[in-house]
């Protein structure tokens, strides 16, 4: 499987169509390469502004990933469908998406500390086993938690 796929975000809508208008973001390919979960909600913590990015190695981005492993995944429980950071290239992070069957906990998303969140109803994302931890480092530039050696 390829290490990443693309989604396009225009500030309101999230599309898997690479020709859609908006910002192209790399996502863990497993999130979009399987049977999609209908009636889910995507919490997109990202901005359409192309300058909105942080390095994956910035402490705040590292800590958001730690928080995902420590309590965000357990808090979501069965509601979680999948999650992925958004990569722009080998070093920059443009935020993250958490997809859940119920949006009621999105106000606690650790990635909200990095970029504002937008809730988008979606039928496009697949159920993916969450990362087991503790690695927060990325595998050859893939959007965390995707990839592998």
């Amino acid at each position, binding site marked *: 499987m390829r290490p990443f796929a693309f989604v396009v975000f225009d500030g309101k809508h999230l599309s898997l169509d690479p020709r859609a208008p908006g910002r192209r973001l790399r996502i863990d390919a497993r999130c979009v390469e399987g049977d999609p979960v209908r009636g889910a909600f995507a919490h997109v913590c990202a901005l359409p502004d192309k300058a909105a990015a942080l390095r994956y190695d910035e402490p705040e981005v590292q800590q958001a990933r730690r928080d995902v492993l420590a*309590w965000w995944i357990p808090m979501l429980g069965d509601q979680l469908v999948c999650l992925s950071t958004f990569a722009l290239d080998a070093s920059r992070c443009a935020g993250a998406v958490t997809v859940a069957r119920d949006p009621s906990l999105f106000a606690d998303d650790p990635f909200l500390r990095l970029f504002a969140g937008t809730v988008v109803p979606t039928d496009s994302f697949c159920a993916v086993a969450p990362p087991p931890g503790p690695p927060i480092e990325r595998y050859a530039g893939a959007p965390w938690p995707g990839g592998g050696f």
Partner: protein
Amino acid sequence: MKPGGAFPDLDLPDHTGRSRLLSELAGGDPLALFTSRGWWCPKEQHYLRGLCRLQDEFEVAYARMVVVSVDPPEVQSAFRAGLGARFTFLSDSERRWLPQLGLLETTDTLHDPYLPAAFTLTPDLRVHRAYNGYWYFGRPTLEELRRDMREITMAVRADWEAPPA
């Protein structure tokens, strides 16, 4: 489960109740697996707090940790949160794997827990070293775990020696 032997690909629920395979949790990385009596044992509490210190190194070193106990997932989840752990706990509350692994602690007839043990594993779940932790000092120290992870990483990463300029 001796060095060089295959460790079973455990299929158990994790601390959130999701079904997991040990091979999936390894994900192609070296793995340290610990069997643990349970949340109630002071020795386990102390040892796992030590592992939580070590997780700060594992998180950047492409290595994994897994703890197996007979605690139910919801108990593991609370224990894990209290410890500040960011690695996976697997629940064998039905004691499905415990007899197959031969790790029943026979002296505790109240809990019928796992014997404390540790296994450092290659990404394909081969045993690198095995530790009997019935007595506390039989468990691997954090230094021994670092050593094992170094040895496994050296063996499985083709680019251990950085490419020459």
